[in-house]
């Protein structure tokens, strides 16, 4: 067990040495060392990926995370905001009594007991062992039950023929999609595009990491200051937690 961690550490160090100077923030580096996974090894439930969002640090007018997400997945609009694909939305919550407003990014919450997975008739909606809720678009028949079931309205349906997709984020007509936590990046030991953009923009409102690892930045922060679930009453045990709500 400890051998394993050590060897991946070494591998990571090797990799980074070859690249030369590392310009990523120290926090990011740390998580990469702890979780580097060889390409040929299947993901396991030893890891549960999660995200912690501090709404106090989230600027109302800022769309850095959304822009980065749209860019990463080439989400393209057709001038129809009601149906255009969106993986992240900015939601403003307002306390009617006090008038206090807060703004937060809302995306797939990667529930432990995910309603989308429960209702999917083909098994296309599934949970990866490491906690990421995904759509296997190869199996998706586009019935959209999952969209109805999702309490966070996190999913979109692709209504149009698409062109100019990136090689790393295939998307196409007739299938449902949502935030993948940037699974293609996670598997390469990178953090999700939104989190990266948020920290690049010096907002640092989002922390990404392994909820199962008590020493990860996210777990420590959660232990110290807590983090709420949106619609905690549904008992879905979401992997995306919020502070300041």
């Amino acid at each position: 067990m400890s051998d394993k961690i050590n060897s991946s550490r070494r591998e990571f160090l090797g990799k980074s040495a070859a690249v030369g100077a590392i310009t990523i923030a120290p926090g990011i580096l740390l998580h990469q060392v702890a979780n580097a996974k060889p390409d040929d090894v299947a993901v396991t439930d030893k890891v549960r990926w999660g995200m912690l969002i501090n709404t106090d640090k989230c600027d109302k007018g800022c769309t850095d995370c959304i822009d980065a997400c749209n860019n990463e997945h080439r989400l393209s609009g057709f001038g129809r905001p009601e149906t255009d694909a969106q993986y992240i939305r900015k939601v403003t919550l307002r306390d009617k009594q006090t008038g206090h407003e807060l703004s937060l990014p809302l995306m797939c919450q990667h529930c432990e007991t995910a309603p989308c997975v429960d209702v999917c008739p083909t098994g296309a909606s599934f949970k990866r062992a490491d906690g990421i809720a995904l759509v296997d678009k190869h199996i998706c028949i586009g019935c959209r039950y999952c969209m109805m079931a999702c309490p966070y309205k996190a999913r979109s349906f692709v209504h149009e023929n698409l062109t100019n997709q990136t090689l790393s984020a295939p998307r196409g007509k007739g299938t449902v999609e949502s935030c993948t936590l940037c699974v293609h990046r996670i598997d390469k030991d990178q953090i999700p595009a939104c989190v990266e953009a948020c920290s690049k923009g010096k907002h640092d409102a989002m922390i990404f990491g392994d909820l199962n690892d008590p020493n990860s930045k996210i777990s420590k922060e959660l232990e110290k200051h807590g983090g709420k679930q949106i619609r905690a009453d549904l008992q879905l045990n979401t992997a995306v937690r919020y502070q300041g709500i």
Partner: protein
Amino acid sequence: MTNRILRITTLLLGLFLLYPAPGSAETPLPTIHEPEGKGLKCVEPEEVMRRDHMEFILHQRDETMHEGIRTSKYSFAECINCHVEPDEKGHIASSKSKDHFCNGCHEYAAVTIDCFECHADRPQKHIKRGKKTATIQQDLHQMLSANNDNGGELK
């Protein structure tokens, strides 16, 4: 079983047609543009690839999707990266054209695949940025400024 027989028949037919008897006046053979480069080899021997390429990518698809296995050997993205190149004029045939590596044979053998409805048919560096992306960002910015008061329904 029938599938197997069909496959073998198609294959034999395919191979036969790829190496035609001289002077045959049949439908012209597909031209397969193979990637050029000294010592460049496919991920398996050519005969194996011709016969079984679909098995490899379909298998890889499930492993990558569900288990996060990201080996490059049978990766779809890697097939495209190596096999799809611009011609002398700098033009890349789309996956619908018979000049696209993956479509020459398919069109010839009446195989239709839907992979390219989602997957890019060319290497990343040759993908043009869609103009439409600008719109969704503008839409979002607009929605944000217009919707700032009515998001409270979530709580």
